[in-house]
């Protein structure tokens, strides 16, 4: 189990490779990467995303989610990486990886972690456009997604 909250970029492919390497225990590995999408922003296209977070609480909140997912779906291993600071379009914001004996558990745990990271980990996104900035508003469907767990 590992949780990393960092400003530095990470290499999604290398992380996936290292996470899956030599697993004899888990038949199923699921990974998710969130990427800065080329969305409309103030003044046209998105230039960058700025992510603020709450140091200390961030790590606690993610560790609690990871512990719950691990217990609930019997995970063999779990990894969460989430960046903060300024990110350009096309860069990976965060990733989750889960390993379990069977695929249904690995998928469910990854989706659970994503839903909770979206709405219960203290990160906030600001869109930086060519002519202005705007904080991203929480989406009702992200909050509603928690109800399924």
């Amino acid at each position: 189990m590992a949780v990393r909250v960092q400003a530095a970029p990470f290499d999604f492919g290398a992380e996936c490779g290292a996470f899956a390497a030599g697993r004899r225990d888990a038949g199923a590995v699921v990974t998710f990467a969130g990427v800065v999408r080329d969305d409309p922003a103030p003044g046209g296209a998105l230039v960058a995303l700025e992510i603020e977070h709450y140091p200390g609480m961030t790590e606690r909140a993610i560790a609690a989610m990871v512990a719950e997912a691990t217990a609930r779906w019997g995970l063999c291993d779990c990894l969460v990486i989430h960046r903060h600071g300024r990110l350009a379009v096309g860069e990976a914001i965060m990733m989750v990886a889960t390993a379990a004996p069977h695929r249904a558990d690995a998928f469910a745990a990854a989706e659970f972690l994503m839903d909770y990271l979206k709405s219960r980990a203290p990160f906030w996104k600001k869109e930086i456009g060519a002519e202005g900035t705007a904080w991203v508003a929480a989406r009702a469907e992200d909050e509603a997604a928690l109800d399924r767990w």
Partner: protein
Amino acid sequence: MTLEVLYFVWLRERVGTGRETVETGAATVADLVAELRARGEGHAAAFADTRAVRVALDQELAGFDAPLEGVREVAFFPPMTGG
């Protein structure tokens, strides 16, 4: 009691600081918010609509009716948008 009060995102922008030390006798988060609102225009703007505000006590999410006894750090922020 002495509290460290933290503000994030647009609450920080409206209040004008990310952190302040507050001397208070407030029993609950709601009581504290009422006191903070009276501190000035920025604070009042930050707490104009508390439906858009979330609170954490010592880095754990809590409700506005939560008691402050024993708490050292109170953080206010909008709904989270990570992932």
